[in-house]
Every structure is written in C-alpha cells, then in structure tokens.
C-alpha cells in the first residue's frame, strides 16, 4: 500500500510538471482559439537563452530579467507578425502557423546558441524527503522528491495568480470576453490586438518558468521540446479552455503514467509504455467526455 501511495504521489507531482506546460497552451487557446504548437520550442528558447547567459558568467538575476524581457518581446512580435495577419482565418491554419513558428524558433534557438546539452542548476535541492521522519503524524512511510514539491508550489502559485487575474481584473475580463466571441468583444470596444499581445507575452513568461524547471529536471537540450508532447494529453483531458483543467489533467496523466509503468508494463513485455500510455489514457477520457473534463461543450448548428 505504501508503495502504491509512493508511486501515486510521485506520479501526481510529476503531473504538475506537465501542468506547467499545459497552462501556456490553455491560456492561448482560451483567449484566441489558437492551438499553440510552438509551446515546447518557446520553452527551449527561454531555457537555452538563460543557460547560455549564466554559462557566460552573467548573474542569475540579470539573466532571468533579460530572458524575461526577451520572451515578452517575442510574444509581442509573434502576435504582430503571425497572429494579427491571420485573424479570422480557420483554426486549422492558425494551428499550422504555430507549427511553422515552432520550426522557425527551433532553427533560431539552435542556430543562435548551440544544440549541445546544458546542465541547469536553479539551486532547488533535489534531496528526497522521508515523510515518516518529517511528519510522523501522517503515518505514511513514503519518499517524496523535494524538487517536485517546489515545482508543485510554483505551478500552484501560477495557477492561483492566473485565476485571480482572469476573475478580478479588467484585462482578465476582456480576455474572457475575447475568448467567448472575438466579434462581439471587438464590437464592445475591446482592443483585440492588445489583448492578444498580452496573452502571448504572459505565455512567454510561463514558458520561461516552465522551461527553467524542466531544464533543471532533464537538462537543457533539444529534447526539451518534447515537453510539448507531455503537455498535449494533459490539456486534452482537462479541456482546451480550462485552466483548472490543466492541473487536473496533469495530475491524472502523471498518476496514470507512473501507475501504468509500474503495474501495466509487465503485460506488455516490460518495455517502456509511457509514451503511448498517456495518450491512451487521454483517449479513454475523451471517449467519455469529447471536450475534456472541464472543456466547453460545443453546440453546432447547420
């Protein structure tokens, strides 16, 4: 039982890492209907820029601020040059445009910096915690990674902040209006372009945070772009339009992945099944709820 719990908790915590990627997706989809495939590469670009600067003896804080500014500027440029000319195009072309953007940024990031593997140390301890020693009252004899907890706290803070931002600020209100209906939002005088620029800039910041945490976990290299593939089933389970869905989806995928690896892999010859298992889990959830757990139900008319 303790082993099961340990696997479950480990899975839930690693699921939070997936949620980090997923939040950026949801934010853009919610406010502009764009399925941003370039998320993983933006993550890579942010982490790679940061790492390359710290390796050149730039101070941690300064490097962070420079990368932050760069990601915000990048977000605004993307809105100007890619999203604005494509406004009111079909969702498929917008998706394809982000795939093109993905390729562009991939070439750029590796062309400007390099494609070597960089180590990244954020200074968060990676030591495991023995829960029975720290909190004997719980009576649980399991081990938890300290880093995972830190990541979970950061993700939780981000989600709380975003939720408050969406619910209680004027910009958040405009964002919700835009996500509901572009045309109607423009008709009541909401500046669509500015809203989109804000969204892309905020996404850039999320990418930076997620990129640093992922970079610390798995080192900064091209494989970081695979984070996008971890985030995909998460948002599809949670629903493309729901920020809490990103968290719930992340927890489900994380837990299911770890549990599947431990308890199901035997059935399939003991080979790593986690790549397709996450997608199969997502598929099962989608067959029950075709727009995810919290996704908006689409009503179609002829």
């Amino acid at each position, binding site marked *: 039982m303790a082993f099961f719990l340990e696997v479950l908790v480990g899975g839930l915590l690693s699921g939070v890492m997936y949620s980090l990627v997923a939040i950026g997706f949801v934010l853009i989809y919610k406010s502009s209907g764009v399925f941003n495939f370039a998320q993983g590469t933006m993550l890579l670009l942010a982490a790679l820029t940061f790492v390359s600067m710290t390796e050149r003896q730039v101070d941690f804080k300064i490097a962070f601020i420079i990368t932050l500014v760069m990601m915000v500027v990048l977000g605004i440029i993307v809105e100007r040059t890619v999203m604005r000319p494509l406004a009111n195009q079909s969702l498929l*072309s917008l998706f394809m445009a982000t795939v093109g953007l993905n*390729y562009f940024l991939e070439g750029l990031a590796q062309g400007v910096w390099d494609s070597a593997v960089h180590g990244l140390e954020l200074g968060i301890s990676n030591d495991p915690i023995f829960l029975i020693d720290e909190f004997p009252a719980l009576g649980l004899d399991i081990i938890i990674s300290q880093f995972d907890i830190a990541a979970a706290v950061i993700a939780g803070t981000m989600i709380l902040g975003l939720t408050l931002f969406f619910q209680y600020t004027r910009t958040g209100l405009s964002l919700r209006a835009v996500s509901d209906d572009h045309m109607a939002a423009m008709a009541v005088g909401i500046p669509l372009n500015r809203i989109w620029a804000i969204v892309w800039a905020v996404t850039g910041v999320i990418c930076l945070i997620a990129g640093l945490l992922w970079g610390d976990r798995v080192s900064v290299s091209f494989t970081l772009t695979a984070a996008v593939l971890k985030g995909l089933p998460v948002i599809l389970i949670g629903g*493309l339009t729901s920020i809490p869905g990103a968290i719930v989806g992340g927890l489900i995928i994380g837990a299911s992945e770890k549990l599947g690896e431990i308890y199901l892999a035997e059935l*399939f010859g003991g080979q790593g099944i986690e790549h397709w298992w996450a997608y199969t889990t997502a598929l099962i959830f989608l067959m029950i709820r075709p727009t995810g757990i919290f996704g908006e139900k689409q009503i179609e008319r*002829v």
Partner: protein
Amino acid sequence: MYYREAGRLVKSFASDRRMLPLMEDRWIVIAFLAFMYIVVTATASDYLFSAILIPMMVLGVATLGLNIATGYTGQLSLGTAGFMCFGAFAAFNLVLRLEMYLPFAFFFAGVIAGLVGIVFGLPALRIKGFYLIVSTLAAQFFAEWVFNAYPWFLDNNSSGVVALPPHHYKVFLGQESTPFNAVFWHSYQGRYLITLTITLLLVLACKNMVRSATGRNWMAVRDMDIAANVIGISVAKTKLMAFFISTFYCGVAGAMYAYCYIGNLDFMIFNLRRSFLIMFMVIVGGLGSILGSFLGAIFVYGWPILITRMGDWIFGGGTLDTAFVENNSKIVVGTIIIVLLIREPGGFAALWLTTKKKLRSWPFAN
C-alpha cells in the same frame, strides 16, 4: 491564349466525364509522363534516382495520404509516419513469412496499414477538431513502441535495424530469380520505374476518388459534418473510409520507403518529426490538392539538399556543416509556412491555379 475551356463543347457523356477536359492538359500530362518514363530513365544518374527522385515520389505518396485525411476530409492527423511504419513492417513480414511478390506485398501492406488506420480513426466518430490529434499521436507512439518492444516483427533481429536481403527483391511477376529480376530490382532505374508506376496508379486512383461521390462526401464532411449528415451522408462511414484510404496510401509509401529508397527496415526513421515534415509538405503544397502534395514533397525534401549544394558551389566543398544547414532550412521552412498561410493559404497548388488563370486571359488583364 488558347489555353481555356471557352468554346469547347462536349458532344458525348464520355468526353464530359474526362479527367482532363482540356486537350492541352492531356498533352502536357502525356508529355510529362513520357519524359519521366523515357528521358529520365535513360539519362538520370544514380545519385539523382536514389537521393532525389525516388524519395520525392515516395514522400509525395505519403503526403497525398495525409492530404486525403486532412485536406479532403478535415481530420487532423499527426500519425503519418507511424502509419508508414506499419506499412513498411507489414510489407517486410508479408515477404518474409508468406513469400509474397513485392508489388503484391506493397498492396497488402497498404491494406494492413489501412485497417490499423481504421482502428485509430474510430475515435473520430466521437471526438472532433483538435481533440482528435490525441488518437493519431497515440498511433504514432504506439507504432514506435510496438516495433521496438516485439523483435518478432523484425525477424527477431536484436539490433533494431534490418538490411532488406536481396532475395526479398528477386520475385517479380511470378518469376523466381531470373536475371531480369535481379537486374531490374537492383538497378536504380528498376526501382525508379516501379516507384513511378505505383505512384502513377495511386495518383490516378486518388484523382478518380476525389472527383466522384466518395470525394464529394469527404469534402462535405470536411466543410460541415452536421450539414453533411442532414443531406443524408453517413458521416461515420465517410470518416472511416477516409481514414482507411489515407492510411492505405501512407502504408504503401512506408513500404516503398523501406524497399525502394533506403533498402533497410528501421522503426527509428518513422518518428514524429517525419510526421510533421509530411504535414509541412501538405501545408506548403496546398490542402486538398493532389498536385500540391507532390509540390510540397519536392520543396520540403529538396530544400536542405539545395542549400547544401549551393553552399558547396559558392564556398567550396564541405564548408557548410550539417547543423548550419539543418537550422537554416528549419528557419526558412518555418518562415515559408507562415508567409504562405498569410499570403496564399492554398499553398503552391493555389499559386499554380493563379498562374493558370492569368495565362488564360493573357495578354489581357484578367
């Protein structure tokens, strides 16, 4: 110009149903085929056959397959390379275990890949839009995993890569190991001719499908599936049909990729990046266009080669390292995709149509 439909009256149903109603178009196609079959076969170098022409045609077939699902039926698919992988392994096992003649193995490999495609297309009946990519991505990762986890598919070869043995090629049209077979399959001309013929047959089949009720049903479902349902089209049947045909094409392409192009079997090359590359070919070429599928394949496949060649030509041999070329071609292809989507959402195929329209009224302005 004389190149237009005006004034050409059809006098029989047969001529009304022609695939290419304009005489000029027919001549162009015949001349092009004659060029490909006679001039190219006789003159092209081995490099041109093995590194340019064969892969471009094979990838063109895969692009056409994806175009059937995405361009004609509107079902987003990111599992193209996975389906190619199923096709390649199916062909290998059919030849290995049933000693099937290679062209038949290609066909049945397509059928097997198509059946796999139906399985992964089933969720399309319930899930729509972006949510559907989860199913095709599952297919992609499942393919990469299953051929890695079960070496049986690779004839229990532990290395993960099998060089396709010569005796797989020797059977051709019922003859066992005649000198003709050996020469035909082991010369690049032979492989080129077989690839060209299969490609031609598949293109003809596709052209006829999209101009018949099958294709019209696909397009109706793409444009609005509820409306299609209302006018009496079975959406489920149409979607599954599209998935079957689409993955059939991908499967045949995968089998040809292994047998006619690289000559070995390796699940690693049918990875997600290849799926994306094929999707780029669709976008760059034009969604819902047969010509576009091949133009896209030619461009996306040919661009890195062109860059390398130009670099060698300008700066002297071997100065441009592969990383530079790769990054550069990524940036350029990415930019071209975005620019095309903004300026010409129809891709290269639409550019060709515009040119044709201009040609019609030339020398007058429109």
